[in-house]
């Protein structure tokens, strides 16, 4: 069997792919270690560290107390000394209790030190809703982090990217916030998403941070999106293709750096753009993308930009309420149809 064939055959969930990337880097570099809540025997609530304790032991896979300011700060300290910690906090919604360590320390030390001090750490966390976990466990918040300078923000949508971006994040000399939507992980206890399992090369490889990917080529409109919404957009694109509407789907893969060139290139081609964002609508990703296009050349747009995002309300618990605010395939389809005038 050739390598290419093996690669095609071997399919992993996004969670397994992330773990494989972490394990390979831990084998390669003694300075890489993992810490966080329930990352040891439990293997991470969302399966992001499963099996690592068995292979690397408790010195390199450390369960922490529920002391986020303390252990995220400790990750920063270890990184300052040149280690490469991967620190997990299971839900992005919990970062409020330790935000100071993140945006005043992790993100600013390199700048404040005039470039003298590096903080090469990965802060990983899970985002997103869709299973009625309520307002404190369903947010995305990536724009909040992306708004604050000094950290890269990575948001993969599929297994292959998840592994390559993890390896890139660990090797990066900057703090990288690595955010995975629960709905893309391929977890046994979440609704199955066909694209949360996919081919993953066995060897180590990097997916560059800051490069978007064209998840689907199209001519009529560009859907700019990321994470779980990529899957929804692809589903919608397939449906509309049957009616002769061809959507291009751009998977951003990282918010910082943002691949503005890829956005402009695609919009230059299609002339229509729909931004799909599972984060809050105002002051976020969709506004940034609109600004990117308008600053370059408003005449690129054949129709006003459209956006599907959470309408500036906390994520409600009850299913009909949650469905009303999340960017569901139905909302995406309606917006896409409106955009192309169908």
């Amino acid at each position: 069997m050739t390598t290419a064939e093996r690669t095609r055959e071997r399919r992993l969930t996004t969670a397994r792919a992330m773990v494989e990337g972490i394990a390979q880097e831990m084998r390669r570099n003694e300075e890489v270690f993992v810490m966080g809540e329930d990352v040891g025997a439990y293997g991470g609530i969302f399966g992001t560290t499963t099996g690592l304790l068995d292979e690397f032991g408790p010195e390199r896979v450390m369960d922490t107390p529920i002391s986020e300011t303390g252990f995220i700060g400790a990750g920063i300290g270890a990184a300052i000394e040149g280690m490469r910690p991967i620190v997990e906090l299971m839900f992005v919604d919990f970062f409020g209790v330790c935000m100071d360590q993140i945006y005043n320390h992790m993100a600013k030390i390199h700048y404040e030190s005039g470039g003298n001090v590096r903080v090469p750490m990965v802060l990983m966390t899970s985002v997103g809703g869709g299973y009625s976990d309520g307002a404190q466990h369903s947010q995305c918040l990536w724009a909040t982090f992306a708004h604050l300078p000094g950290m890269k923000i990575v948001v993969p949508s599929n297994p292959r990217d998840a592994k390559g971006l993890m390896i890139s994040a660990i090797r990066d000399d900057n703090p990288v916030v690595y955010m995975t939507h629960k709905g893309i992980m391929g977890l046994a206890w979440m609704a199955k998403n066909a694209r949360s399992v996919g081919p993953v090369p066995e060897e180590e490889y990097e997916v560059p941070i800051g490069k978007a990917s064209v998840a689907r080529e199209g001519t009529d409109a560009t859907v700019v999106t990321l994470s779980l919404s990529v899957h929804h957009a692809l589903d919608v694109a397939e449906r509309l293709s049957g009616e002769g509407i061809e959507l291009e789907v751009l998977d951003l893969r990282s918010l910082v750096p943002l691949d503005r060139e890829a956005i402009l290139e695609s919009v230059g081609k299609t002339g229509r753009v729909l931004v799909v964002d599972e984060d809050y609508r105002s002051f976020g990703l969709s506004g940034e993308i609109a600004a990117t296009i308008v600053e370059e050349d408003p005449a690129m747009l054949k129709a006003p930009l459209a956006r599907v995002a959470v309408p500036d309300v906390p994520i409600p618990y009850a299913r009909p309420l949650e469905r009303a605010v999340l960017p569901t395939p139905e909302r995406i389809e309606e917006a896409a149809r409106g955009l192309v005038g169908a």
Partner: protein
Amino acid sequence: MDASTRLSLYRTMVRIRAFEEAIRREYYVGKQPVFDIGAGPVPGEMHLSAGQEPVAAGLCAHLGPDDALTGPHRPHHIALAHGVDMKRMTAEIFGRESGLCHGKGGHMHLFAPEVHFGCSGIIAEGMPTACGQALAFKKRGTDQVAAAVVGEGAVNQGGFHESLNLAALWKLPVIFVVEDNDWGISVPRSASTSNFSATDRGRAYGIPGERVEDNSVEGVYEACGRAVQRARRGEGPSLVEVHTLRLWGHFEGDAQGYRQSELEDVPGRDPIPTYRRTLIEEGVLDEEEAQRIRAEAEEEVEAAIRFAKESPEPAPDEALEHVFA
């Protein structure tokens, strides 16, 4: 302790257990044979409190509807013991319009202002709020008190320490109650806490504390009684720590692979059959009465579940309401 108090503590515990068992049953509807956390009539995470009933019953026996109580992510037992309406609470858990929060809050975010109850899914973050409620009571010169319940995992959180310091500094009428069930999800107390005694931590801030080691409802009742009286007399905060028991997983669906060895002796430590035996042995309760108490509880719970199921779901447009007052 007089017989009627003991019976009332027992009744509260049985009522809570009947509720949690029914919620557990309903939670798995639609989630079988393959567990899918988002499926069924009760989606989302579900943290049940079986084994921790003594804390709720013993504490809340001293609180009235004017006293404030904030709960953590595992809130049902203390909400019920504090007098939160069972029907509307059940409807909230089912995500119905008739729920406490019209379906917006859900299992971890139950709010019942008529009895000053609230809770949060963020560890330890109910504690500062309880301090603020106590501050309001103190400023107004009422004899109301506030209590906050947290798990032992929360004692390592900044919010815990800051709240203790504020409460001691301002002599607030607040009672901190720590439910030490040995586990923070999969992390045992021994791996999370350098000085395991939360009461020692409280003492370091000048807050008197008691640890109830045996998960007995009467032990909790006595300790909380002293704490609440102190607060009502204007003598400031106290801390009560209860070595309790998480009978089931951290959340429903938790296979608990991390605690295999210890599970075997759990049934023998269930506080409800233990208390039942004691009360029967001491002539406070007989079999018939015990069965009646359980039957009454089940009836109430089933009525609440029926109420929830028969209530309509909120209309999608409701999602946009209530961002601002």
